[in-house]
């Protein structure tokens, strides 16, 4: 009776493995779509909150959306470079590839959504407070940092993530390439984190000494 139970369990496990293998069409793992959908669900929240803040015409809510999206964006970047970067450095190549397979779809929508919401909410907030004066050196400095962050996001972050997806979709993915692209994104997150610390200093200056 016991051996029958074990064999049933073995059959179920084998069946599950076959189902997983069937779901893994090509190189793209089955969980990629789920993680991408999760990322989209979370990524829609910041711009939707911004719409709600503007619809309610609440300066407090607008300020909250700007600070929470900007702060979360900065926190993510610092976490990725300071903590996750160290963890990845301690992993072997297959381990790094497994992290990259999960990290890329999970951050695919969340990071650009937080970034674009923080920037857009910041402009609306500055307009509302009367501090959006384009001749002010502090506003110009904030604009320059935002342009650099956006160029890095569109020019390096996103293309690298897309190339990781493309590599995963190949019959025999180049693991070293996936790891290299992911490491580049992690290092870039560190650069972005430092730039965001600079922009927070600029924001603090604008808040205390309005132009």
């Amino acid at each position: 009776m016991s051996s029958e139970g074990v064999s049933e369990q073995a059959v179920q496990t084998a069946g599950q493995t076959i189902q997983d293998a069937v779901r893994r069409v090509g190189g793209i793992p089955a969980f990629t779509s789920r993680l991408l959908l999760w990322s989209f669900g979370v990524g829609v929240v910041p711009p939707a909150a911004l719409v709600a803040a503007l619809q309610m015409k609440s300066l407090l809510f607008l300020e909250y959306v700007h600070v929470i999206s900007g702060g979360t964006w900065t926190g993510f970047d610092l976490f990725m470079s300071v903590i996750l970067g160290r963890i990845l450095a301690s992993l072997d190549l297959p381990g790094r590839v497994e992290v990259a397979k999960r990290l890329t779809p999970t951050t695919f929508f969340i990071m650009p959504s937080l970034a674009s919401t923080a920037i857009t909410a910041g402009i609306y907030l500055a307009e509302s407070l009367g501090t959006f004066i384009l001749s002010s050196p502090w506003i110009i400095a904030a604009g320059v940092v935002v342009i650099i962050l956006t160029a890095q996001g569109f020019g390096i972050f996103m293309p690298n993530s897309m190339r990781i997806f493309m590599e995963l979709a190949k019959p025999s993915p180049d693991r070293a390439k996936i790891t290299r692209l992911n490491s580049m994104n992690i290092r870039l997150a560190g650069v972005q984190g430092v730039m965001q610390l600079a922009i927070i200093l600029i924001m603090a200056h604008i808040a205390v000494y309005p132009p």
Partner: protein
Amino acid sequence: MNVYALVAVALFAAAFLGIYGSIYLNALSSYRKGELDWHGIRILRLGLYGHLTIFAILAITALLV
């Protein structure tokens, strides 16, 4: 309506589409050569639709101020 905000979102979307589109076309070319699986193209399409949705929501904000 904030015209500058709408133009800014449109410019961001155009820059995004330019970069995303060029990589997507490369992926499509690789798929036609048999180097890439269809699911890779599907994932990239889902990524495109998702980003466009986020841009569309941000564009709505320009109509609210």
